[in-house]
């Protein structure tokens, strides 16, 4: 029998999770503004509509099968979810690959705690789903895009989520491979951002660069975004939503570590933005607003996995490294690999998702995370504490993201491109005219058309 104080604690914890879910869902508005602002006016209705529609598309896939695949085996007594709703579907013991149960929220024990968890997790899935809409913007055929949304919510995101947060095999590597506390990703640098980032890379590779992005000499040309204030506002909204993303990942308001998490998140974002401003000024002479936005987001992405386990100084260092990493990756992606990523999704989400995942194994100071993944860990420790095992677990996670999850995304887009009449890319004349009228039937800015030279 729980005491009244314990019951109250559980209730407050669940409230915290639901507040977190609402904040993360609001991040969709941030993504929509960032991506639309960084694209050209003639595609603006199309780009903003992909960001709008992805919320529902991914949601539907996650509702029917994605959630039970990923979290059928998840339990957390702190919010009143004592028993998992399902069991293993593929694999057993420490080697669970997918779960079952609770299909479409119609079977198993449906409790407020389970539904609160669903709401929180669906918001994370939608973040993954919306990342490729940035790297593939201005040329992704609408009908092809919709299939990605459902695929991401139903299968793509749940795979790696099941292996890590759901209690699957990567979370058990502390037992099976003696690696630290197993794969540790507090709020999803890897599970969300790197997984979304490799899909962004795969999509950009398959769909190809926008017409006019690379000159005849192969040099990248700038195709400036049409609404920088919109993109910067979106960045601030993402920062705001990120407090739900990270701080509410304690799943417990009674776990005051959420304050540490929130502050570390803000530190990394601030240091990322400042570093990017100075770094791009040094590189090109001007404090490019787009790069400042990318720098802040890079810091936020990178601190997402380690935010609960690190000291504030480490959050600052992570923010600084993340910003430089993001800017250099933008250059490398464009200049060396000739990949067109209009918003910098690959640099921000993939590169810094990977960095953040590894950062857990570097900067964790052992002050938090006792018993993580059911291990005997007394607190997550990185190499600054002389422990290399955790970095091993993180590196294995990165290898799986690059070696298993990326090929799945690449294969998905490749096969879809083959099976779709005309491919997953919009028609050339539509792309040149702007996707707004041909694909959406409406212009974003009908009053302002005709002013382009």
């Amino acid at each position: 029998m729980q005491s009244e104080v314990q019951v109250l604690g559980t209730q407050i914890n669940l409230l915290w999770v639901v507040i977190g879910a609402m904040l993360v869902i609001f991040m969709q508005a941030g993504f929509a503004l960032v991506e639309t602002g960084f694209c050209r006016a003639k595609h603006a209705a199309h780009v903003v509509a992909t960001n709008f529609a992805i919320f529902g598309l991914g949601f539907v896939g996650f509702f029917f099968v994605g959630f039970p695949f990923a979290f059928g085996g998840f339990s957390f007594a702190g919010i009143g979810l004592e028993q998992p709703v399902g069991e293993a579907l593929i694999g057993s013991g420490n080697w669970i690959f997918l779960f079952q149960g609770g299909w479409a929220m119609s079977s198993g024990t449906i409790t407020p705690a389970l539904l609160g968890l669903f709401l929180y997790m669906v918001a994370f899935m939608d973040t993954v789903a919306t990342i490729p809409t940035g790297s593939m913007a201005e040329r992704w055929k609408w009908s092809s895009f919709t299939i990605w949304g459902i695929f991401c919510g139903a299968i793509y995101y749940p795979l790696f989520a099941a292996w890590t947060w759901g209690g699957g095999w990567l979370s058990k590597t502390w037992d099976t491979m003696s690696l630290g506390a197993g794969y540790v990703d507090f709020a999803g640098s890897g599970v969300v951002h790197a997984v979304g980032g490799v899909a962004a890379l795969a999509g950009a590779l398959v769909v190809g660069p926008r017409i006019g992005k690379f000159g005849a000499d192969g040099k990248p040309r700038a195709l400036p975004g049409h609404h920088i204030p919109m993109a910067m506002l979106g960045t601030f909204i993402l920062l705001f939503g990120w407090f739900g993303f990270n701080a509410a990942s304690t799943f417990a308001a009674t776990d005051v570590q959420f304050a540490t998490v929130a502050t570390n998140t803000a530190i990394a974002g601030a240091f990322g933005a400042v570093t990017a401003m100075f770094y791009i000024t040094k590189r090109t002479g001007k404090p490019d607003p787009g790069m400042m936005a990318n720098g802040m987001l890079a810091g936020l992405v990178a601190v997402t996995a380690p935010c609960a386990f690190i000291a504030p100084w480490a959050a600052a260092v992570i923010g600084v490294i993340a910003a430089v990493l993001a800017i250099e990756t933008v250059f490398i992606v464009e200049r060396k690999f000739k990949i067109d990523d209009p918003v910098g999704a690959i640099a921000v989400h993939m590169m810094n998702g990977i960095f953040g995942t590894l950062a857990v194994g570097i900067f964790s100071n052992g002050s938090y995370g006792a018993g993580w993944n059911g291990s005997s860990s007394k607190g997550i420790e990185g190499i600054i504490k002389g422990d290399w095992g955790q970095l091993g677990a993180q590196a294995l996670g990165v290898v799986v993201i690059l070696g298993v999850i990326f090929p799945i995304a690449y294969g998905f887009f490749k096969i879809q491109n083959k099976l779709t009449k005309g491919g997953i890319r919009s028609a050339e004349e539509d792309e040149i005219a702007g996707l707004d009228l041909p694909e959406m039937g409406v212009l974003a800015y009908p009053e302002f058309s005709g002013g382009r030279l």
Partner: protein
Amino acid sequence: MKLITAIVKPFKVDDVKDALKSAGVQGMTVSEVKGFGRQGGHTETYRGSEYAIDFVPKVKLELVVDDAEVDAVVEAIRTSANTGKIGDGKVWVTDISRLIRIRTGEEGSNAI
């Protein structure tokens, strides 16, 4: 009657307008235009990549004046729009054969 057309730097428009008003001009038409002359375009960087601005924004003024006022008006534009730097623009004068005020049907100098 002459049509005077001037291309000036956008930030000088207010100065030009004030100078023309002082010179007794009663009306004009302005439009935002783009183009290039000897100043050429310039390059900007966006997300680390350079791009060319081939057409520089300018403002075009058009006004019709009596022959007797042409020199004074041209001089007013030339002095007020002058910064001494490349890209200050141009003024040209064109003959017009007929001028009509739509409201009253007046023609010629009466219609100015």
